């Protein structure tokens, strides 16, 4: 009895410690956003009174609003396109299984091995020739279809009850109709999971936007942060504020959707 109590206490201590270690750097980041640069550099741990000052300086020298909007727009577009294209492909690979499709799937999985740096320049050339430089389309296109997402959706389609499909067919529903009216609503949590992952990756994307961006109106948050630390004199309070702001959207989205997120992976792993 005592041993169990002890084990219980130990369990909570361990979890609290792990949780604290996980969020401490982020907390420190948020706290630093309220301090002056000198304070941050000298390692101050307590919140300060410089939040408004840092914000004012940041807003004066950089267009945060535009960067946030561009990041949002790009990430949302990439997410929407990805979800549609990859989910229907994953569904297709599983529900209409045949050897040919399976073989194709394995080939597609190889693409996960390709590092971005290797294809960066050919991609840039291609996008340039298509005349799409500096557009949201250019940002989205190379990332719309990823083997990982197709895989995720395929796994969830594996556990989609075939009876529902049969019943829908008997009622005369088209295949596409079955996908949109039956699969999508039931697999909502998988979509949430895939959406969060894609949104996160698109939001934090740095190298690709850097290359295809041709005017300062296309700036996105990661590039803005990088601008902040590029000078001779860096205002670290301002930088931390910028960084906190850029992390906020993904954090908020996850907080709001976290229940569905766990469910989503669950449903694809059954």
């Amino acid at each position, binding site marked *: 009895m005592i041993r169990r109590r002890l084990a219980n206490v130990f*369990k909570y201590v361990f*979890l609290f410690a*792990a*949780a*604290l*270690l*996980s*969020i401490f*750097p982020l907390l420190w*980041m948020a706290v630093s956003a309220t301090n002056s640069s000198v304070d941050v550099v000298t*390692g101050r*741990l307590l919140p300060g009174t410089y939040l408004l000052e840092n914000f004012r300086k940041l807003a004066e020298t950089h267009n945060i609003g535009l960067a946030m909007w561009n990041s949002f727009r790009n990430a949302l577009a990439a997410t929407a396109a990805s979800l549609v*294209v990859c989910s*229907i*492909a994953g569904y*297709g690979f599983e529900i*209409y*299984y*045949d050897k040919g*499709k399976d073989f*194709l799937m*394995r080939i*597609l*999985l*190889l*693409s*996960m*091995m*390709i*590092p971005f*740096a*290797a*294809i960066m*320049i*050919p*991609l840039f050339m*291609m996008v340039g020739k298509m005349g799409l430089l500096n557009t949201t389309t250019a940002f989205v*296109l*190379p990332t*719309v*279809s*990823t083997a990982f997402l197709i895989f995720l959706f395929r796994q969830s389609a594996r556990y989609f009850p075939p009876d529902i499909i049969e019943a829908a067919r008997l009622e005369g529903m088209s*295949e*596409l109709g079955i996908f949109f009216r039956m699969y999508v609503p039931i697999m909502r949590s998988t979509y949430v999971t895939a959406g969060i992952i894609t949104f996160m990756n698109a*939001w*934090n994307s*740095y190298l690709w936007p850097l290359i295809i961006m041709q005017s300062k109106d296309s700036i996105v948050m*990661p590039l803005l*942060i990088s601008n902040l630390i590029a000078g001779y004199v860096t205002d*670290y309070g301002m930088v*931390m504020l910028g*960084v*906190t702001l*850029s*992390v906020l959207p*993904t954090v908020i989205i996850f907080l709001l959707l976290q229940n569905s997120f*766990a469910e989503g*992976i*669950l449903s694809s*792993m059954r």
Partner: protein
Amino acid sequence: MGQVLTLKRRQNLIGWLFIVPASVLIFIFYFYPIVRAALLSFQTGVGVNLQYAGLFNYQRLLADNVLKTSITNVFIFLIIQVPVMLTLALILASLLNDPNLKFRGFFRTALFLPCATSLVSYAIVFRSLFALDGLVNFVLTSLNIVERPINWIGNPWTARALIIIALTWRWTGYNMVFYLAGLQNIDRSIYEAALIDGASGFTRFTRITVPLLKPIILLTSIMSTNGTLQLFDETMNLTNGGPANATLSVSVYLPAVLPVFTKVRLCRGHLLCDLCHGGCTLFHPNEGG
């Protein structure tokens, strides 16, 4: 009989239509560029003046000692970090699997958050925390775990440890959520039966949990291995490959040295990256099946 076949074939064709957009996109934006890069890897020269150079580039690559160091580094990270992280994630997931646990939502969120941050964000934070007079050293010396502050970035092995700590911090929560989902699948009755049979917590973990989670463990292992082999962000921003190339990773070194070797940036190095990772693809078909 004939009618059934036609229906099935029709459905099959529709299936192909479903997968065509995604597949075509991957061919255009992944495979085509890498093939072009591979072709260029057999050439040398400036810009448009490319000549066929055969294996010349590869020969020079193989003679490069720094490259060998970077490959060694990546493997050190791989061998240590991936198992440590996945084990930790598994343990955390098991602990969080208890429906009676209080603050479950808080723990899950807190542990997942690190992977939502971008690197620039936490690089500065981590560097400050692990500075000579940073918080970590402060805590270590106060608790008398060490006598003098550790120069994390200045010493090859502590620098590697720092990278491993950073990677673990960032990705444990991510993997943990995968395991959590898998665990919630396992019927509680199996555990109860084992408990009645007198199995300890440890035995239940190793004999029931781990085997049943095999597919997920395999998936996360592959993803983590893939990620570590392509390691760039942490080694670039936290330690800048130092000290003395002790934490230099392949993805950082190759793009930096290639324009120097040949004037064409996309070259053999990238193909080599793929060959390095190629080993992993052997596992993929099994997993995907």
